[in-house]
C-alpha cells in the first residue's frame, strides 16, 4: 500500500496529521493503544476459592453439622450445652481465617507484578493539526502521524513514510539480535519482513523516522501475540496437582472413617445426635486444618528467599515447579547471551586472536604489542560512527550506552578497552571525508588526517564485508610490514574467514592506505558522492569478528542443570549457525557430541546415510520443523539429548513446548521477547527476564529473573527441589498427629472410655502448637545430592505417597498415639481412676445427672470435677516435639526448628497454665511430672527414625528404602 493510500484509509494528512477531533473519535472507536491485560478472575471469586477449596468443604460440613446438632439440642432440651455451638463457631472461624490467610498471601505475591508494570510509562510524539505534541502512548490512534528517534520505543505499528538512518531493534518480537534498518520502501510482501513497517513496542535504535500509525493496541503484531498468549489455557502447577492428590487422600480417609463410625455408632445404640457429634470429631481430627496455611507459608518463605537471589516469583505455586522441571527450553538472545555484540576474535598477522568476551573482562588477553594490531585498532576506531553517550565516565566501558550500530559499538568498546580513549584518537586524526555503509558497496570508508602533524598525507580507512575488502587490497600487513597479497595469504584469509564464520560470528574486514601526498595534497577536496580518490590497491590489515557472547554464568548453569537431570533445549529465532555456535559455547551441545550433519561431514557421507541414533545432538531449522509430523517431533525430542531449534516462530516455540509436555516432561521456558510469551505461558513455568524482558513476556511468565541471569534458574531448581523435600517433611510431621487425634475417638466409641481429647483441643494442636514446627521445617537445609539426582517423575514421585502415609500413620503416628494414651492412663490413674475401671465407664462419665461417680479408690466425684482431669493434649505435644527433631532429618542445625519447638512448648505451657483457660478451652494446669509421661515413646520414635535412616544410608536400595523412603 502506498503512503497515499494509507493516508486516505485513515483520513489523515502526511504533514498535518490527524485533527484532534478525529483522534478523539478514533480513540473512542478503537480504545486506548495498550495491550489489554489477560482477563483476571474477580477478587471475590479468588477469595471464595480459598474459602471453599481444599479441606474447607470438610470443615464447613463439620461446622454445619455442629450448628445442626446445636439446633436439635436447643429444640429438644431445656438447657442445651453450648459445646456444639462454640465448636461450630470455632470451625467457621478457622475456615475463614485460613482462607483469608491464603488469600492475602496470594494477593501479596501478585501485587509485586502490578508494581512492576507501572514502572514503564510511555510517551509518544505525535503530529496533530500540524503541531508536535507529546502524549501518552495510550492515546495514540490509528492514522496518527508519529515521529520516532533513536532510543524511543515505537508506540504502535507504524507504516514508515520517511526515515533517516532509522534502525529498529526487533529482538523482542523476532529474537534477532541485530537492529534492522527501516525505510519508506516496501521490500517484502510479508508485513513482518518488510522494511517499511515498524512494530509496536520495538525499539528505535538510531536515526529518525516518521510514519502513520496503522494498528494500535491489541491489533498490533505484538498485541496479536499477546492475545494468543493470554488465550492459552495453562494447566495446574505440579504442586497444585500434588496438593489436590493429597487432599483427595485425606478427604477419602476422613469421609470413610467418619461414615464408618457414624454407622457403627448407630449400630452400637448411640443416638443420632451423638453419632453426628462423633462424625464431627472424626472429621476435625482427620483434617490437618493448619496444613494448607503451612504449605502457603513455606512457599512464601521460599519465594522470599528466591527474591533475595533475584528470582521474583509471580505465582506462589511456581516456586516448586522449577524443582520438578525436567526440560528447560531456553531462548538464546538475552537469556543465554548478553544481547550485546562483542568482538570475539581477530585475525591479523596470519593468526587468529581471541578477544575477551566475558562480562567482567576476566578472560585471556592477546598480544597487543604487534604493529599490525595498532593499525587494525586504528582502522576500527576511525572507520566507526558509534560513540559513547555523554556523562557515562563512571560506568565501566562495557556497560556504557552507545549511540550507533551494534557491530560498531562492539568495535568501539573493544578498542576503548584495549587501546584507551577512542575519542582522543579521533581528535588526533580528524575526519576529512566519509562514505557510510550501504548495502550495495558493503563497505564503509573514511579519510583522516594523520597523527603526525608533520605528515601531510591522508589516511584512508575502510571496513566491510571481508571478501569485498579483500578484492580491494593488493597488499597485506604482516608484523607491521606491508607485503604483497599472494595466493597463500588469500588461502589463509579464506581459512580464517571460514573458521570465524563457522563459529556463528559476524566477520568484518579492515584495510587502510596512506594516500600518497603528491596526488592528494593537504586540503584536497574529497568528494564522497562522486568518488574522486583511490579506493583499491589498499593494504589489508585484518579481520575482526563479533558475536553476541554467552553470559559468563551460563555454561556452568547448563552443566549443573544437566547433572541435575534436566534437559536443556535451545529455542531461538536466530540463525542456525549462530545458534549452534552459542549452544556449543554454553554446553547445550556438549563437547564431543555431533549432529547428524557433523557426522556426515566427518565421515564424508551424505546426511541421509547417517543413522540419526548416532547423533545425540541436533539442530533443527524452523522451516524443517514446519514439515514435521507429531510423531517425528516426539521422536526427535525423545531421542536427542541435546537439541537446538533455530529460526522458530512464536507458534513453533509453542509447539515445541507442547511436544515436551506430551512426553510427560515438566517444561520450563526462559525467554525475554514477545515471541517467547506464548511458550512462556504454555510452559509449566515460564521464566522471564527482568531487565531485558518485554512486558508481555513478564506478564506471561510465572517467574522473573531480576538480574537476567540464567544461573538464577539453577538456584530456582535447587530451591524448588528443596521445598518439595521440606514440604514432605512438613506434611509427614503434620499427618503424624492425626493418629493420636483420631484414635481417642475410635476408642471412645468402641470401648467406652472417657473422651481423652476434645474437638477444640484438636483444633488447638493443629492450628496452634503444630503449625510453627511444621513451618520451620521449610528452613531445613538441602541434602547434598539435591542437584545430582534426576528430576522427580510427576506420575510416580508424589508429594504424599503410600510410604509417607505408612510411616506417618502406621508407624510414627502409632507410637505417638500410644504415648498419648499412656499419658492419658497415667493422669487418670494418678487421680484415682485405674485403667481397668475406665473401659465402659463412659455412660456414667458423661451422665449429666450423675454426681457421685466412684473412682477406683472409693472416692466420689461430681460432674464438674470429672471433666477437670481430661487434659491429654500435652503429652501428645511432648511426643510431637521430639518427632519434629527427627523429621528434621539429616542436619539438625536448623535454628528455626529449634525455635519452633520452644514456641510449641511455650504455647502448650501457656494453654495449660494461663488462668481462665479452664473456662475457655477446658484445659487445666498440668503437673510437671505428667509432661514426662510420654518420654519413653518420644525416645522410641527418635531411636526408630534414626535407625531407619541409618539403614537407609548403609543399605541403599534395600527393602527398608523401598518401604519407608518417602
Amino acid at each position, binding site marked *: 500500500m502506498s503512503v497515499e493510500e494509507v493516508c486516505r484509509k485513515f483520513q489523515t494528512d502526511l504533514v498535518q496529521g490527524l485533527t484532534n477531533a478525529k483522534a478523539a473519535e478514533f480513540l473512542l472507536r478503537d480504545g486506548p493503544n495498550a495491550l489489554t491485560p489477560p482477563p483476571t478472575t474477580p477478587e471475590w471469586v479468588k477469595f471464595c476459592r480459598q474459602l471453599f477449596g481444599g479441606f474447607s468443604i470438610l470443615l464447613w460440613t463439620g461446622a454445619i453439622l455442629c450448628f445442626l446438632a446445636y439446633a436439635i439440642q436447643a429444640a429438644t432440651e431445656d438447657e442445651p450445652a453450648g459445646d456444639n455451638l462454640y465448636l461450630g463457631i470455632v470451625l467457621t472461624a478457622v475456615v475463614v481465617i485460613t482462607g483469608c490467610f491464603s488469600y492475602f498471601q496470594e494477593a501479596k505475591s501478585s501485587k509485586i507484578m502490578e508494581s512492576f508494570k507501572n514502572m514503564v510509562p510511555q510517551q509518544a510524539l505525535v503530529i496533530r493539526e500540524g503541531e508536535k505534541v507529546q502524549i501518552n502512548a495510550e492515546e495514540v490512534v490509528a492514522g496518527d502521524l508519529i515521529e520516532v528517534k533513536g532510543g524511543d520505543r515505537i508506540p504502535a505499528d507504524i507504516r514508515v513514510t520517511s526515515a533517516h538512518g532509522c534502525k529498529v531493534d526487533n529482538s523482542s518480537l523476532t529474537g534477532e539480535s541485530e537492529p534492522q534498518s527501516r525505510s519508506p520502501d516496501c521490500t517484502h510482501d510479508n508485513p513482518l519482513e518488510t522494511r517499511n513497517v515498524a512494530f509496536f513496542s520495538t525499539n528505535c535504535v538510531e536515526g529518525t523516522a516518521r510514519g502513520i500509525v496503522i494498528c494500535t493496541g491489541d491489533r498490533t503484531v505484538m498485541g496479536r501475540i499477546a492475545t494468543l498468549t493470554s488465550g492459552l489455557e495453562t494447566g495446574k502447577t505440579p504442586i497444585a496437582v500434588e496438593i489436590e492428590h493429597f487432599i483427595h487422600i485425606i478427604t477419602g480417609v476422613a469421609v470413610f472413617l467418619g461414615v464408618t463410625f457414624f454407622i457403627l455408632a448407630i449400630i452400637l445404640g448411640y443416638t443420632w445426635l451423638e453419632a453426628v457429634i462423633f462424625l464431627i470429631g472424626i472429621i476435625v481430627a482427620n483434617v490437618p486444618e493448619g496444613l494448607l496455611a503451612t504449605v502457603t507459608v513455606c512457599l512464601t518463605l521460599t519465594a522470599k528467599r528466591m527474591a533475595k537471589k533475584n528470582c521474583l516469583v509471580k505465582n506462589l505455586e511456581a516456586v516448586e515447579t522449577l524443582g520438578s522441571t525436567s526440560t528447560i527450553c531456553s531462548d538464546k538472545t538475552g537469556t543465554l547471551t548478553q544481547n550485546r555484540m562483542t568482538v570475539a576474535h581477530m585475525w591479523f598477522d596470519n593468526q587468529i586472536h581471541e578477544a575477551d568476551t566475558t562480562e567482567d573482562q576476566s578472560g585471556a588477553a592477546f598480544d597487543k604489542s604487534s604493529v599490525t594490531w595498532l593499525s587494525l585498532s586504528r582502522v576500527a576506531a576511525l572507520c566507526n560512527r558509534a560513540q559513547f553517550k555523554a556523562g557515562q565516565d563512571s560506568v565501566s566501558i562495557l556497560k556504557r550506552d552507545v549511540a550507533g550500530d551494534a557491530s560498531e559499538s562492539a568495535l568501539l568498546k573493544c578498542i576503548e578497552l584495549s587501546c584507551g580513549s577512542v575519542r582522543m584518537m579521533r581528535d588526533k586524526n580528524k575526519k576529512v571525508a566519509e562514505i557510510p555503509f550501504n548495502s550495495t558497496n558493503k563497505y564503509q570508508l573514511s579519510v583522516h588526517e594523520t597523527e603526525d602533524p608533520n605528515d601531510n598525507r591522508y589516511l584512508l580507512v575502510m571496513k566491510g564485508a571481508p571478501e569485498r575488502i579483500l578484492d580491494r587490497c593488493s597488499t597485506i600487513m604482516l608484523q607491521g610490514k606491508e607485503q604483497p597479497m599472494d595466493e597463500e595469504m588469500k588461502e589463509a584469509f579464506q581459512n580464517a574467514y571460514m573458521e570465524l564464520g563457522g563459529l556463528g560470528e559476524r566477520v568484518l574486514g579492515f584495510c587502510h592506505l596512506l594516500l600518497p601526498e603528491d596526488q592528494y595534497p593537504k586540503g584536497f577536496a574529497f568528494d564522497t558522492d562522486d568518488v574522486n580518490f583511490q579506493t583499491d590497491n589498499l593494504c589489508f590489515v585484518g579481520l575482526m569478528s563479533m558475536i553476541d557472547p554467552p553470559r559468563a554464568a551460563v555454561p556452568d548453569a547448563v552443566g549443573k542443570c544437566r547433572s541435575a537431570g534436566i534437559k536443556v533445549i535451545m529455542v531461538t529465532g536466530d540463525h542456525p549457525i549462530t545458534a549452534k555456535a552459542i549452544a556449543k559455547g554454553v554446553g547445550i551441545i556438549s563437547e564431543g557430541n555431533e549432529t547428524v550433519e557433523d557426522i556426515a561431514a566427518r565421515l564424508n557421507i551424505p546426511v541421509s546415510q547417517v543413522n540419526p541414533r548416532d547423533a545425540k545432538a541436533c539442530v533443527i531449522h524452523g522451516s524443517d520443523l514446519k514439515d514435521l509430523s507429531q510423531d517425528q517431533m516426539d521422536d526427535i525430542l*525423545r*531421542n536427542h539429548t541435546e537439541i537446538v531449534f533455530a529460526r522458530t516462530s512464536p507458534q513453533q516455540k509453542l509447539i515445541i513446548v507442547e511436544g515436551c509436555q506430551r*512426553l*510427560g516432561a515438566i517444561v520450563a521456558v526462559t525467554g525475554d521477547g514477545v515471541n517467547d510469551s506464548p511458550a512462556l505461558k504454555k510452559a509449566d513455568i515460564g521464566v522471564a527476564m527482568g531487565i531485558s524482558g518485554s512486558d508481555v513476556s513478564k506478564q506471561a511468565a510465572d517467574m522473573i529473573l531480576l538480574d537476567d541471569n540464567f544461573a538464577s534458574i539453577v538456584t530456582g531448581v535447587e530451591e524448588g527441589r528443596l521445598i518439595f523435600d521440606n514440604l514432605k517433611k512438613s506434611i509427614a510431621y503434620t499427618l503424624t498427629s492425626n493418629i493420636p487425634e483420631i484414635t481417642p475417638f475410635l476408642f471412645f466409641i468402641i470401648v467406652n472410655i472417657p473422651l481423652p481429647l476434645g474437638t477444640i483441643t484438636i483444633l488447638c494442636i493443629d492450628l496452634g502448637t503444630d503449625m510453627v514446627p511444621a513451618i520451620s521445617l521449610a528452613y531445613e537445609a538441602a541434602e547434598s545430592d539435591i542437584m545430582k539426582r534426576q528430576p522427580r*517423575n510427576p*506420575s510416580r514421585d508424589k508429594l504424599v505417597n503410600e510410604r509417607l502415609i505408612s510411616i506417618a500413620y*502406621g*508407624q510414627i503416628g*502409632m*507410637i505417638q498415639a*500410644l504415648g498419648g*494414651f*499412656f499419658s492419658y*492412663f*497415667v493422669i487418670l*490413674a*494418678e*487421680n*484415682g481412676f*485405674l*485403667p481397668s475401671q475406665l473401659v465402659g465407664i463412659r455412660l456414667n462419665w458423661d451422665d449429666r*445427672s*450423675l*454426681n*457421685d461417680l*466412684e*473412682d*477406683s*479408690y*472409693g*472416692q*466420689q*466425684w*461430681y*460432674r*464438674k*470435677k470429672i471433666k*477437670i*482431669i481430661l487434659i491429654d493434649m500435652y503429652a501428645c505435644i511432648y511426643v510431637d516435639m521430639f518427632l519434629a527433631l527427627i523429621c528434621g532429618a539429616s542436619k539438625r542445625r536448623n535454628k528455626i526448628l529449634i525455635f519452633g519447638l520452644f514456641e510449641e512448648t511455650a504455647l502448650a505451657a501457656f494453654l495449660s497454665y494461663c488462668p481462665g483457660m479452664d473456662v475457655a478451652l477446658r484445659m487445666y494446669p498440668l*503437673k510437671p511430672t505428667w509432661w514426662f509421661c510420654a518420654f*519413653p*515413646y518420644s525416645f*522410641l520414635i527418635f531411636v526408630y527414625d534414626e535407625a531407619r535412616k541409618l539403614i537407609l544410608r548403609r543399605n541403599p536400595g534395600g*527393602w527398608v528404602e523401598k*518401604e519407608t523412603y518417602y
Partner: protein
Amino acid sequence: MASTEDKAANKENVSSWKDSIYNPRTGELLGRTASSWALILLFYLVFYCFLAGMFALTMWVMLLTLDDYVPRYRDRVPEPGLVIRPNSLDIAFNKSDSKNYKTYVNHLESFLQRYNDSMQENNDDCISGEYYMQDDGEMTKKVCPFRRTFLSLCSGLSDTDFGYQEGKPCVLLKMNRIIGLKPIGDPYINCTIKKDHPVQMHYFPSEGRIDKMYFPYYGKKAHENYVQPLVAVKLLLTKEDYNKELAVECRVEGTNLRNNDERDKFLGRVTFRIKVVE
C-alpha cells in the same frame, strides 16, 4: 530409553485398572507381590507386637508406682459435693399414681439395702461427735455403723413409700466420699425452698446432723464396708404446694466446707426441683 519405558508402563496402568487389584502376570495383588505383602505384614506384625509389649510394660511400671490405698493426687477433689437420692435433679410424680413414683421408691429402697440392720450390726458403735481416727498401722479399718433406722420416717421401714404416696416425699442427701476428709465444726444439712411462704421440712437424723465419727474415710480397700452418713429430708408439702415446681437448695452448714462457690453448684450444696401432681 528410559522415558519410553515409563510411558509404556503408564499406558498399561491406565488401560487395565484391573491389574491394580490383581495382576496375573506379576502375581501382584493390590500392587504388591505375595512375598512383598508377606514381608510388609510381617514387619507390621512384629512392629505392633513390639509396641503392644512396650505399652504393656510402661503401663505395668506405672501401675507398680501407684499406691493401693490412696491415689497419688487428691487435689482435684479437695472438698465434697452434695448428692441426693433418688438420683435425679428433677423429681416429678403423681402422688395418686403408684406406678408414677415407683422408680423413685425402688431406687431409695435399693440404695438403703446397705444400711439394713443386718448389714450394720457387725459394726461396733463409735464415739459420737469425734473423728474415728485409725492411724495405728492396721491396714483394714473399722467402720462406724449407720443404721437405716436413724432415718426414722424416711427409712422406708414404717412407710414403704417414703412419703411419696401422701405427697410428702423423702429425699436422701449424702456428702461425696473424700479420702481423709475431716470437716471442722459440726456438719449439718440445711435445705431451703425459694418460695413466698416456707415449707415445713423434717430432717432425719434430727436437725440434719452428720456425725463426725464417720470421718475420715480411708479409701475403698482399707475401708471396705464403709457406709456414708445420710441425711433424709421429708418435705411436708401442703395442698397449695402441689402442681408447682419447687426449687430446693440444700447445703452443708456448720463447717469449713465451702458451700457457696459461685461457679460450682455442687460444691457443698445441691439444688434440685420437685413437683408433685395431685
